[in-house]
């Protein structure tokens, strides 16, 4: 009974996870093509690609900001790495791409932290700039990555698990460690939780604010490089739709948009939900246009249930699940 109760309590707190498991079971039963090794390993690749970008976004959101330029940064860096490959080789191409992302992120960060320009405007501006730069690089057309070693990054599998997903998980563990156990991580929570308190506690707030945008840009660039390796092409608009999906994923997981709260495991959960929905609809052979409508509705209702039950708990009213748990 005791285990029952703690399991139940866990799911009361983690309603999104519960919702995901239920939907997962339903779709597995309903569609033959869903619960197959091929499809699931495909799902993990998607989670890995979006997840990497979401890790950077998680830092930004915990720190009380967000980066609208993350998606276009994926497009830009996929183009950059593809074009550099042939000229300088794999490792330099990747390093140069990451370095460019670092510099661009630093520009954003300094504009927000030092020049005190609203981050929405700064990242919106850089979003447009990055889109333009990505298109300019290849004159509007994609660039093939004709380099077997590089393409191997996207194709490699260990067991049936893609190398991309493994890279994502390694980065996730590193981010978890940084956020939970380092001074750097703690101070990011502090500036997101209360900027003024952080400042008056002697935290170098400008540095941390700027780092949020650097991290977001660099992680997005990693996403872009992996994307290019996966599809063997640098594509000037491939990541443009990713920004909103990634922000939504982070927030669905439960990281608060107001900052100071959340963690990367929640991001993993949120991105998983987002990727699962797209994948499941394809498996269920639902017409793509209506997919978007249903997807939107599911996202809103899942979060609505979660925040509704949270306000209930704050007021001291118990939900159905907690009533069951009390009886156990």
């Amino acid at each position: 009974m005791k285990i029952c109760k703690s399991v139940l309590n866990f799911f009361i707190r983690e309603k999104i996870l519960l919702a995901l498991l239920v939907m997962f079971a339903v779709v597995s039963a309903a569609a033959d093509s869903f619960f197959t090794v091929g499809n699931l390993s495909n799902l993990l690749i998607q989670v890995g690609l979006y997840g990497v970008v979401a890790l950077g976004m998680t830092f930004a959101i915990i720190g009380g900001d967000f980066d609208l330029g993350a998606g276009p940064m994926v497009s830009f860096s996929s183009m950059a790495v593809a074009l550099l490959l042939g000229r300088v080789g794999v490792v330099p191409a990747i390093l140069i791409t990451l370095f460019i992302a670092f510099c661009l992120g630093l520009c954003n960060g300094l504009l927000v932290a030092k020049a005190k320009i609203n981050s929405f405007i700064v990242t919106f501006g850089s979003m447009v700039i990055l889109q333009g730069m990505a298109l300019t690089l290849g004159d509007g057309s994609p660039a093939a990555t004709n380099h077997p070693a590089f393409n191997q990054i996207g194709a490699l599998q260990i067991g049936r698990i893609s190398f991309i997903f493994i890279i994502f998980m390694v980065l996730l563990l590193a981010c978890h460690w940084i956020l939970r156990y380092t001074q750097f991580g703690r101070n990011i929570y502090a500036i997101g939780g209360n900027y003024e308190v952080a400042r008056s506690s002697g935290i170098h707030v400008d540095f941390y604010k700027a780092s949020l945008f650097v991290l977001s840009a660099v992680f997005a660039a990693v996403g872009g490089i992996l994307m290019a390796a996966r599809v063997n092409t640098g594509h000037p608009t491939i990541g443009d739709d990713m920004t909103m999906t990634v922000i939504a994923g982070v927030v669905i997981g439960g990281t608060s948009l107001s900052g100071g709260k959340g963690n990367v495991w929640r991001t993993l959960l949120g991105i998983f939900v987002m990727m699962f929905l797209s994948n499941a609809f394809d498996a269920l052979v639902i017409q793509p246009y209506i997919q978007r409508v249903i997807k939107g509705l599911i996202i809103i209702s899942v979060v609505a249930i979660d925040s509704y039950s949270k306000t209930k708990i704050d007021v001291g009213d118990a939900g159905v699940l907690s009533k069951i748990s009390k009886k156990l």
Partner: protein
Amino acid sequence: MDDIVLEMKHISKQFVGVKALDDVSLSVRRGEVHAICGENGAGKSTLMKILNGIYRADSGEIWLNGKLRNIQSPEEAHKAGLSIIFQEFNLVDTLSVAENIYLGRLREKGVKLNWRAIERRAEEQLKNIGAEIDPRIAVSRLSVSQKQMVEIAKALSYDANVIVMDEPSATLTDKEAQKLFSVISDLKKKQITVIYISHKMDEVFALSDRITVLRDGVAVSTAATKDTTRREVIASMVGRAMENEYPVRQGRRTDETVMRVTHIRRKPVLHDVSFEVKKGEILGIAGLVGAGRTELVRAVFGADPVSEGQIEIKGVQKKIKSPMDAIKNGVALVNEDRKELGLVLKFPIAENISICKIGSIVRKGFIQRKQENRIAEEYTGKLAIKSTSCRQKCVFLSGGNQQKVVLAKWLYADADILLLDEPTRGIDVGSKYEIYKWINRLADAGKAVVMISSELPEILGLSDRILVLHRGKVAGEFENEDKTATAEEIMSCAIG
């Protein structure tokens, strides 16, 4: 006389595991000023939130204006004739006074709003309580006291005959408070009932007809004000007799100057302020709201930029351009607004305590969480912070305990110079006494303490020396090592 306007019967309310109210009954007569006293966490706010429909009681009945009510929202409370003015005002700063008063009720008929009528009605409401405020200006341009008048006018515009005021004088100057008191006595003449929640005994005794004391969620006593004494009320609030309101210091100040501030200017609030503070000294800073007290300590702390001035710490000139510089030089600031400026409320106690000196618990890149908890436990023990564990989030602590966490944070940061801005604002009597003891103890340990307070008795009871500010200038300085300064001389100096 026994015309009961509001009766709460056997109200109980439990939050996850904690009994906030236990069988509380309260009856309020028509046209009386009924004071409710109690320490923070005694259940005053919970009781009021139940009245207002924000919380639902687990059991009990509310009778208001002769009917049994089931109040589920503030709107329903308004309809039943009850309005609450919370400590944090519910006003939209960017809208005008008139818009705020009739917010949600701007439209009478048709689609187009009749601004002239709305403004005229707002003006009338304000005139009724003797407030001269232009209903067309934005609320952001009003003083705290004027905002409060707007809140009262708003409450009355709902035709409320019961008005609850939660700590209404906490942020007012003495003069503004007098104005508030005269408005309250006017309301009383109009047979409007006022429920007055306050920590300040002076006010409670000057204003109220009856006093109810809550302690640990139980209504311990209700008495007619003229039949009880200040001492009795305080004793039933804390559950024990209080000897003195201010503890006596053991040690004495030294002659060694720790910080010297010279000719500090910050237009338009500070005009050439100089002062020094000695090791082991408690320097009280008095003055009216707007005299530049908060601005002065913020400037010294590097939180606001200054146009001129030098700061010398232990004889060495220092450049303090940011709080980071100040902390490096051993200066700490305990803000008056602890929710906005003192604590990260989303953080657990332990993480708030270690925030300034987190570097000291990092080993090989790792934050030593066990060590962090040990430190937190040490300080929660020392300062008697009431909590379930040191990983409890600060948002769930009472005001007094939150303030103790702020103090713990600066104790751990080991600052030599403590700037305390209204360290006991909104804190209950029992916790206040503990904070006073700590201020004395810090001074005894050789720290220099600069304390701002709007409560003169506090300044007189604790400080070794008193600096009075008036319009951004030093208006006077009083020796007070043997507590010889008087309230009259300080006040007349502060008024200018």
